């Protein structure tokens, strides 16, 4: 699908997570999402960026504005070269955490976006690909 615009951001610190949120907010506004959808997307971005930082040991975020005939979307890609997720279904379960979190980030992000896919290889890293259509 045609990508109208791409931004790449490093996710290496807590302030990078804030920067990802701000960029995603701007792009979601530009794409014409309403306020509730913007809030959904920004919240999902915050969850995924924090996971990249906390569990992936840092990585990067790629934000794409997608246009297809008749629809516009926002895609967020979070990639790291961290330890990976051994059991993705388990990780998506609400309440499951290996840290000190609530275990809501992945499952919540999946509910807040239209489509969320996780690819992970133990020892190699994790890639989360999330899209929301307007």
């Amino acid at each position: 699908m045609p990508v109208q615009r791409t931004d790449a951001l490093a996710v290496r610190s807590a302030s990078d997570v804030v920067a990802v949120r701000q960029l995603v907010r701007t792009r979601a506004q530009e794409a014409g999402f309403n306020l509730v959808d913007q809030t959904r997307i920004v919240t999902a971005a915050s969850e995924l960026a924090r996971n990249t930082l906390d569990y992936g040991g840092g990585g990067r975020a790629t934000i794409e504005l997608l246009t297809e005939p008749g629809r516009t979307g926002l895609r967020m890609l979070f990639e790291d070269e961290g330890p990976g997720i051994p059991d993705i279904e388990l990780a998506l379960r609400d309440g499951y955490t290996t840290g000190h979190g609530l275990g809501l980030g992945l499952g919540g992000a999946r509910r807040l976006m239209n489509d969320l896919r996780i690819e992970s290889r133990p020892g190699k890293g994790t890639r989360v690909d999330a899209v929301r259509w307007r």
Partner: protein
Amino acid sequence: MERIPILKMGRFLLVTIQVDMHDRLALALQDDLTARITETGARGVLIDISALEMVDSFIGRMIANIAAMARILDAQTVVTGMQPAVAITLVELGLDLPGVRTALTVERGMLLLRAVLHAAGELDQPSAADEGLDAGPAD
């Protein structure tokens, strides 16, 4: 280090969260609030989040932690000013805030706190010291 100010209003403490919070700031706020509740014997904590454009699981957890720790120190927590879009998103995220009351405005939050303490028989008459923010007539 940057910190979020805590305002004392009579028996209550008011925290207005305005910045896009990063993790260290959130943790410092938790510590500062614990200290201030102990120090002042405050009976209520108002956390105003009307300026927040999103609440993720991290901020949600911070609010839940503050409420839990306030309860142990015998203080009630009220979150005020949550934007409707934020409330909708919180539900979808799956976050519920046990033991946290909410109110639309700081003023209503104060009325709520007073009502709760009053019902517990702890605030026989509305204290002038609690009136700080109220423009209208007292309850």
